[in-house]
Every structure is written in C-alpha cells, then in structure tokens.
C-alpha cells in the first residue's frame, strides 16, 4: 500500500525540512537541512553508496507528498507550537511499513502533527493525502521541535537554536540506521 511501483527505488532516503527562515523558529527545518549538507557533503560522489535527498518545503502538502513518494525512508523536520510550550523540546514520531494509519502517525489524534504544526495546512494534510493516494514512504519519521516564536524575523530563538545540533544528530541517526554503515552523501 505504500507508494507506487513506478516511484519505488531500493533505498531512496529523503529529509524534508519544513519552514520559513523569515519566521524565526519556523526556520528550524531549513537550518537542519543546512547542517546536514555540511555533515554529509553535497554532490555526486563515486564512493558514496547512498545519496540522501534534502528537500526544503514551505509546508504545502502536495509538495511534501511528491517529495516522499517512493522513498524507503522520509525524515521530516518541522517546528511545532505547543501549549504549554517548552521551547526547544524535541518530539519524534515514527511509522513503519504498513503502519501508516491515523493511530500510527497520530495525525488524527489530539497530539498529532496536524494539531500542533506551526503550519496551518501541512504535515497532517500531507499524510492524509499520501495515504489516500497510496504515496506514503515505507518509513516516516517526524522530528518536531517546540517553537518559542514564529513571528516575522530572522534567526532562531536561543532555546531552539540550542536544540538544532541534537536534532541534526538525531536525523543523522535515523538516516544511518536505515542505510547501515556505508558512505552517505547528500544530493547536489
């Protein structure tokens, strides 16, 4: 049920950073992408066994669905607004193959990404749309960071900025766990 045969690749891994760097903590998604690019090194590399695709998204669901269609692993990084907030606190939600229903992703529940994402329309809609269209990745991991400020302005708040390193490491752990010990590069 996950994805369409025509889109499927053996080990396609995509990391999707959702957010807008001109909306303070909403910029955590692009910030993590930028750190991953440094960690992984960009560009084609004959030595690399696997290329990780890094995709910046503004949260628009169709774009997210397109980005993860056919992926064996999709890791999404997004800011969330929580009440009461604990800025910088990290949340990790994961789904496995065939376990992409509402309960597994939580998007139908009270604490799911749809309810708390800083984007009015985004991850929850993307998951719902992907399920309806058979375009879910085999495995989906969502890393959500509680935001302090999503108003207009550039720069992360100190609490969210301090969490960026740990978050990047957590994303890398997910990517490496899925791919094993081989060399990994990001797509150019």
């Amino acid at each position, binding site marked *: 049920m996950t994805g369409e045969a025509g889109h499927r690749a053996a080990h396609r891994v995509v990391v999707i950073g959702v*957010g*807008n*760097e*001109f*909306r303070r903590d*909403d910029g955590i998604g692009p910030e993590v992408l930028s750190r991953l690019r440094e960690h992984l090194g960009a560009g084609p590399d004959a030595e690399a066994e696997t290329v990780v695709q890094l995709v*910046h*998204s*503004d*949260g*628009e*669901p*169709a*774009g997210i*669905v*397109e980005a993860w269609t056919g992926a064996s692993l999709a890791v999404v990084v997004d800011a969330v*607004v929580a009440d009461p907030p604990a800025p910088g606190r990290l949340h990790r939600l994961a789904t496995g193959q065939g376990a992409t229903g509402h309960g597994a992703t939580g998007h139908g529940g009270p604490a799911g990404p749809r309810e708390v994402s*800083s*984007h*009015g*329309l985004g991850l929850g*809609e993307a998951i*719902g*749309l992907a399920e*309806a*269209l*058979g375009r879910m990745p085999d495995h989906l991991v969502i890393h959500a960071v509680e935001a302090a400020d*999503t108003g*207009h*302005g550039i720069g992360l708040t100190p609490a969210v900025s301090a969490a960026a390193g740990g978050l990047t490491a957590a994303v890398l752990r997910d990517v490496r766990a899925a791919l094993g010990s081989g060399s990994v590069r990001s797509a150019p």
Partner: protein
Amino acid sequence: MTHRGDRTLAAAGLARVEGEGGMYVRVSDGRVEQVRLDIYEPPRFFEAFLAGRSYTEPPDITARVCGICPVAYQTSACQAIEAACGIGIPGPLANLRRLLYCGEWMSSHALHIYMLHAPDFLGYPGAVEFAREHREIVERGLSLRRAACTLMEVIGGRSIHPVNVRVGGFFRAPRADELGRLAGQLRQALDLAVDTVRWVAGFDFPDFTSDHELLALQQPGSYPIERGTLVSSGGLAFPAAEFEQHVIEEQVPHSTALHARLADRERSYLTGPLARYTLNSRWLPAAAAAAAREAGLGPECRNPFQSIVVRAVEMVCAAEEALRLIDAYQEPDSSFVPAEPRAATGHGVSEAPRGVLYHRYELDAAGIVRTARIIPPTSQNQAAIQDDLRGFVQDRLSLDDERLTRECEQAIRNYDPCISCATHFLTLRVDRA
C-alpha cells in the same frame, strides 16, 4: 428562530506561514451590519526589513513573502529595481521571465483548484476526503503541479524560492536542450489543463455577480502575466510608476493590512483572475480561448464562484504559452543585463496568480534601498471581498450558523487569498443578543 434577529459570527484565524486571517459578521434585526475580513499580512515586515539592504537583494528576500508565488515577488522586484537603474531586458530574457512565471501560474492554480476550491463545490470538507474517493482526479492535479515545478526548477534552480533570478535577468540561462526536454511533459500538462476546464465547468455555480471595478495589467496582443500597464473596467489606464497616484492605501482598525481603493472612487475594486480575464480575454492564446468557449465563458466573467473556471483556463494559457516560448527559445548571449545603481525610484508590477502585485524601491546612489513598498493582491482585494460577503450573507440569513460559515469560507476561497490556504481557516463563535 435561532438565526434571525441579532447574531455575531466571529471566526478566529489559524496561524499560517503565508498569511493569517479571520472573519467577523455582525447581524442586527435581520440586517447585515458589518462584515470584516481580518488579515495579518507579511509584506509590511519585509518592507521594513528591506531598508538598508543592497539593491541586488530584494528579488531573493521578497521571494520569501509567499511560498506559493515567489516568482511574482521576484519579478515585480526585478522590474522595479531595473526601472530605478534605468535598464530594460532584451526579448530573450523577457521571454524567459514569462516562461518561469507560467510555471508559477500553473502550480498555484493547480493547487488552488484541486486542493482547496474543488472540494467546496463537490461537498467534501477538504482535499484529503476528496482524494480518498477521487484519487485519479487528484493525481491529475498533482501531475499538473509536477510539470509546473519541473519548469520552475529548470529555469529558477528550484521551485520553492527560485535562486536563479537576479536583477537584470538570470544568473544562468538554461540551455535550449534543457528546455526542449520539458516539452513532452508540458504537452501532457496542456491536455490535463484542458481536461480541468471541462471538469470544473460542470460544477454548480451560485448565481452571484460582483460589480466591482476591475483592475489588471494589459499587454496588447498577449494575455498579461509578467508585465504590462494597468487598465481598469472603469476606463483607467496608467503605468506602474503612477500606481500610488491611482491606488490609495488606508489603515483600517481591524487589520494590519492596509485597505486599497482607487483614487476618486467611492467603492472598492477587484484584481485577480476575473479582472484579468474580463479585461484581456480577447488575447488568450488559441487553446485557452477554445477551452473558455467550450466552458461557456463569454468575453467577461463577473461571478466570483466561476473564478475556478477562469483559473483553469489560465492554466491552459500558461501551458500553451510555455510551449510556445520553449519552441522559440534561443539561448541569450548573456544571461543578464548589468544594472548599475543610481539614486532613483523604480516601480514594478506583474500579475501574481491572485492579482496585481506592485513593488516600489527608492535607491540611493550606492544602491542601498532607502524605502520599499509592496502592495500585494490580497490586501487590494480585501475591501471588495468584504463588500461581496455582505451581499452574500444578507441573501443567506436563513441558513444556520454552521452552514453560513461554511458558505462564507467557500465564498472567500473564490478570491484565493493566501489566508484561504487552510481548508478550515475559520472557526465559529456565535454570540446572540
């Protein structure tokens, strides 16, 4: 009667990256006393942020105002700064700019039609519920969007906030073979766009006419997209440089967005697909004109609910234009025209998917932006949307609050304001006197 007499519909906004809004309706003694569309609007932040930056930066910075229409912001910004620097761009680069913009029109219109607007007409609460029962139709919308994004990626470097646009042109012009490879996908997109027109033309449309003065760009001989002079259905005709003499922005207490009106006019005006179509339908390219005729559109369209048909026709137009421009493309000698700064003010306009987008930049001799002004289509349309909603609500007071709110949401989505991106952007609170 629970829905007669005095009542208040207050709808709080949902936080959005592209915009935030809400709606408030006050009914007293069975008459609509007040309708307010509350918008908190990003461009004001960007205007302040741009002051003190180099004249080369606004195309990149303002592209972040809106994730749905970054090319519109880049184009209006480039044209304003190029005017300030006293340069124009030659035909091949102007065509490339139009080609990139075609991608944005197709992408934005496909999203609005398939994800936001069509479910309203077919009785679904949102795109997800619609997709569960009509997978093949939603896949058609995604294919259109994919073709559009591929076009934007090849010319703009990427589809979200393209990075290849610069003042005077592009950092790198695509090779002819790169564009040529897109033709097959765009021919398919053209067919899908025609299918879209046929599909949406069959929807039921409430009988509703908007009589606002219409404002759009005009490029005699072609349908206006990336440039043009301004014309109105009331006989106005003026260049971008006179925009602020004709469009007056006023602060209103309930919104951080400024309300726009035309100078010397009592009433609000409308920009966007209905205005573009009504003022320019005679210049639609052949396939788009045929699709419009087949859909039953006349030379004018003033029913906001039929804007979904006009958007579909404009998708055909964009795909058709893209194919024509790719076919005629010749790699330019240089990918940009150098622009030397000077102390001057420049104005730029283009037709964002939602309507006229105006930029003005005042530069000093070193090319530092002294002041910036951005007037987006949503704030221009805000007063007209409120006017239309007032009449719309007055005719539907017999509906209960839930139904009325739902129909108001749909009516607001006719105008495709950024705030309508959320399928449930209104939540209702009812206070009864």
